[in-house]
């Protein structure tokens, strides 16, 4: 029974991871840069949510659009103003640049809100769905559902709007997309904005069920990378499965073996994966589940 409880909680956690990783995946897939500040952007989203909640009392689930919009604007401006230019010199520089950004974000959060560990206690936090001995808090169920909903909305956007199709086209072949008149600066900025918005939304969801502090972002970046590498770059379905797999694996290790090794799971998985299957578990690039034509 305990194991089943651990597995179910892991699945719910996995939804959150997937939401985080899909944002990472879009940035990587379209602009070809690895955003080392992704985890910190999620924590930034958590802080925005926390600020809104503590000042206005607005329910965190309702403020997700605000958080996502704020992070979208941040991401769009960053890619449009700076990263597009750096990416032209050398891609690797963007990696270092995002690390610098990560340090700045952490410092800004430390300065604005101190290093205290925060959380958002809600009136319904302790209510739970109880089936036999298994107890699933409603907040975690809601977070899982919300993460899947966001993923579905993104899928609709990518498949059924012109902007979404332009993003996908750029991911598949940037040069051909540019020749067809797609403004790659704008599309890259949009991809980074969407990725940042998803990170922010994931952070808002994280704030509901976990406590956070400015320095909790780094392991999240790693997890996003592992999930994307596991599920295939640009694959939403892959990210969901890989996210859930990582959530379950982490919960099993920390629940049954040793709690201290929770974050080590993703690092070990990462190295094993890169060494054994450098192209991801499911082969080559997926490019946002584009149907083969």
């Amino acid at each position: 029974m305990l194991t089943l409880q651990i597995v179910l909680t892991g699945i719910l956690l996995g939804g959150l991871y997937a939401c985080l990783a899909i944002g990472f995946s879009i940035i990587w897939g379209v602009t070809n840069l690895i955003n080392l500040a992704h985890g910190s952007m999620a924590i930034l989203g958590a802080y925005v949510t926390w600020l809104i909640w503590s000042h206005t009392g607005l329910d965190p689930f309702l403020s997700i659009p605000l958080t996502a919009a704020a992070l979208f604007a941040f991401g769009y401006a960053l890619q449009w103003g700076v990263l597009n230019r750096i990416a032209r010199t050398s891609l690797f520089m963007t990696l270092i640049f995002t690390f610098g950004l990560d340090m700045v974000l952490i410092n800004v959060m430390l300065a604005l809100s101190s290093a205290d560990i925060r959380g958002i206690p809600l009136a319904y936090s302790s209510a739970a769905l109880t089936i036999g001995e298994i107890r699933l808090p409603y907040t975690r169920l809601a977070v899982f559902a919300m993460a899947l909903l966001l993923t579905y909305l993104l899928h609709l956007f990518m498949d059924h709007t012109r902007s979404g199709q332009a993003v996908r086209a750029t991911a598949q072949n940037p040069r051909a997309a540019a020749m067809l008149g797609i403004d790659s600066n704008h599309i890259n900025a949009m991809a980074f904005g969407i990725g940042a918005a998803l990170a922010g939304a994931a952070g808002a969801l994280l704030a509901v069920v976990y406590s956070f502090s400015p320095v909790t972002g780094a392991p999240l970046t790693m997890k996003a990378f592992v999930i994307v590498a596991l599920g295939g770059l640009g694959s939403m379905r892959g990210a969901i499965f890989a996210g859930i797999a990582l959530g379950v694996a982490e919960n099993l290790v920390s629940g049954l073996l040793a709690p201290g090794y929770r974050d080590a799971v993703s690092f070990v998985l990462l190295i094993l994966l890169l060494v054994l299957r450098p192209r991801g578990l499911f082969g080559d690039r997926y490019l946002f589940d584009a149907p083969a034509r």
Partner: protein
Amino acid sequence: MTAISSTPRPADLAAEDAGPSRLALAALALALLLLAVAPWYIGGYWIRIAANIFMYAALAQGMNLMAGYTGYPAFGNVVFFGLGGYTTAVLMGKFGVPFAATLGASVLLCVLVVLLIGPPLLRLKGHYFAIATLGLNEAVREIISNATRLTGGGMGISLPLPPGGPAASAISFYYLFLGTAIAATFIAWQFSRRRLGIGCQAIRDNEIKAEACGLFTTRYKTTVWMLSAAITGLVGSINAYWMTYIDPSAVFDMAIAVKSFVIYLLGGAGTVLGPVGGAVFVELLATYTWSKLLNWHLGAMGLIIMLAIALFPNGLPEALQRLPGRKDVNLRLRRQPITK
């Protein structure tokens, strides 16, 4: 520091074959002499800063060998800094081994680790290699943090105090780091002229072609990573003894790796003296900003990194050379033409 102000040349074969000129050698000898007597003329504060500069110069040389000459961004190389530090800390603190012997042990350990993980990890390229080394660093940090009985875990570990009190030991660490930085620079110089270094540069420029020419690329890459890891591990050992107390989050800190990367980058990638000049520049800048902005030192360092990348993606020397020319030229330097 006269040797640094002379423009570092690219490790280009024709230029390097002639060897350094007599004037350059004289300047180098003078600079070394000045550095050797400097501790008697500068205060304790500047001795510490100078020791820190030498430390980062050596770390940046380690990064230079991997990223600059071989084209493999060993982003998580700080893992050897931490491993070296913990080898010294555990051997000295728990088993009473003399300091000099622990230096050998950390170099040996770092070389063995590369021997083990080098061949599989070096098959990865670019982003993947960078992230894999990052993951390696995090994994080792988790292991050290959880092996509490041996390493003290997250609470850290103390080392015996260096003999002779703080002032005398600061001077001995000055010379230790100076020696390490000189040795690392000498290694980089010899490396850039010898078969190993030339092979690594071929790998950086075109790995498939290098392999087709009969180069055992894995052997070359593993060897250069061993060199890089040995330098980094040695620096980590000395640093641990200097600090007299280390914990996992301090020595497996990615910021150290990124800082040494930025130093190597600003000094000019793939040049022998670049990392030394970069270390002087970045460390002085960091010292200056940190003394002004106590609560913002992390952000200031991040900002320095971001600005360095955005303004001088090809290093300071190149940016300075092109200064009189067109505006904004350094952002366009490596832009690829649309048609090949």
